[in-house]
């Protein structure tokens, strides 16, 4: 019997082996899986961002449930007429059921927050990048994002990565010998590493010697990073192999061996045909 679990296992095995087939060489299986991965990821992120953030947090603040905010004023009535216009457009001019703009407003907030018109307008500006004549408006949205991110990161980075790190690289001479030696190594490594990246003075004499020490510290760091990178990649390979092993059992209708043989045969045919085409073109 074929269940959803078995189908998903077969899809998993097929896509994993398609990606692994790149180890032989670039081929149609790999390209198909790669394109599918990029497309599915982009689609998923777009949908989830809309339903988790844009719909509840932006539209929800602009048009909260009318029961909570209706003061009987004409302005509120007009405001919710705009809401209904958006709903009419989003439902394909009334063809589809309501989804983005539910009946009577979006639940979650208890007052209309007009400040959220700013991100709404900036969001529209961003989409206008697709219209060549109005594409320049997207710069306003990008400028806001860059400015906001710079401001937001400035304090966090300065505090956690600069001030606290400087404080931590100071040597505590009241502690035990091991800690003092460790502190000295960190101190020398920090200073010499910084000197290596200081280009305003020629690296000669004492500056040259210190920058050379800096190189050694940097090399140790890069070596450690490389080691961890290898470890990480091997871990991922083990993880995938473990799934492939699990899915090779009779419970999954021998998904792994069947698809593996299928891909090998297809790659062999594709490779032979490729060689023949090459021979024909050179002849």
């Amino acid at each position: 019997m074929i269940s959803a679990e078995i189908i998903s296992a077969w899809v998993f095995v097929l896509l994993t082996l398609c990606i692994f087939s790149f180890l032989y060489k670039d081929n149609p299986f790999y390209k198909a899986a790669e394109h599918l991965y990029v497309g599915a990821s982009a689609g998923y992120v777009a949908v989830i961002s809309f339903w988790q953030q844009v719909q509840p947090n932006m539209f929800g603040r602009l048009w909260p449930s009318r029961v909570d905010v209706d003061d009987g004023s004409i302005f509120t009535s007009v405001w919710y007429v705009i809401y209904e216009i958006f709903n009419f457009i989003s439902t394909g001019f009334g063809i589809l059921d309501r989804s983005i703009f539910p009946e009577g407003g979006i639940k979650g907030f208890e007052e209309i927050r007009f400040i959220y018109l700013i991100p709404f307008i900036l969001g529209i500006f961003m989409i206008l990048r697709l219209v060549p004549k109005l594409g320049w408006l997207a710069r306003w949205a990008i400028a806001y994002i860059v400015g906001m991110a710079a401001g937001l990161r400035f304090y966090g980075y300065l505090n956690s990565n600069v001030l606290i790190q400087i404080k931590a690289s100071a040597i505590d001479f009241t502690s035990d010998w091991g800690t003092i030696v460790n502190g000295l190594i960190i101190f020398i490594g920090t200073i010499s590493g910084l000197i290596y990246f200081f280009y305003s003075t020629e690296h000669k004499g004492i500056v040259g010697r210190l920058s050379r020490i800096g190189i050694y510290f940097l090399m140790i760091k890069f070596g450690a990073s490389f080691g961890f990178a290898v470890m990480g990649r091997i871990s991922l390979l083990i993880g995938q192999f473990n799934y492939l092993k699990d899915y090779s059992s009779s419970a999954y209708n021998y998904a792994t061996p069947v698809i593996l043989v299928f891909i090998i045969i297809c790659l062999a045919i594709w490779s032979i045909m490729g060689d023949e085409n090459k021979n024909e073109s050179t002849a």
Partner: protein
Amino acid sequence: MEIMKRIFILLGSLDRRIIFLIVGLSVLIPLLKPEWVNLPIRPRPESQIVFNEINKLNEGDKILLSFEYGPSTKPEIHPMSIAILKHLFAKNIQVYGFALWPDGNFMSTEAFSEVSHDYGKKYGIDYVNLGYKPGAEAVVKGIAADIHALYTVDLKGTPINDIPMMKDVVNVENFDFVFSLSAGYPGSTEWVQYACDPKNIPLSTGVTSIQVTDILPYVENGQIRGILAGMPGAAEYESLVEAELREMELSVKPGKASSMMAAQSIAHVMIVLFIIFGNITYYITRKNKGEDKI
């Protein structure tokens, strides 16, 4: 000596696909026959610190568990999630799940459903899964300031005001501990910079191997309390939690990371051998060409 030289030169000219095959086999054989390689798992100090910090929490304490990984890094991080949830649920600690990555939703849902049933934990009372919000550091900043302004509903679409365990939670300051399961940006660094350093909330992390050297400076000076480094870190934590569960006389299911460590060790040995052979071959080839005189 000449024969050895020839062997090394031959090794140097091996087709890369043969090397891939050897690495593949070195991973596959220990997975198929784990009894052939039986290596002990000894927790490193960084993993022990993480365990001790979580073990110090009391019944009823609140922990923010952030899922910042996806299927591509699942083999490294997911065993940590499972081991940590086992530890937390065994100690009756309330768990609040968040996700800074869109795929984190899948990972958190899978982890909670895998562990909560074994410990008889109820959604909304013992644990909650608030899910993903786009915005990276802005989301962390939002959690640090006001969770209710950022999250109106949980991952299932339930209004968070209707969830019992959300009633007395306003921001990150209401948590006793933060744990980041991180595979990159946004992740542990953002929790340090925008929530835990400014608000002085204890933070630990479990990261992919590739991130370890970037996160270690925070660990060294106490901004992050201990670190679970990749799959070995997960295996070490699993062994610590299993020992703790045995002590608490609770049922113990073996963790996944521990079962994969044999393959990891053999693959590392193979890669180290390849690096050594590669360097010797390079040295011999260069010497033969007389390049070392230049």
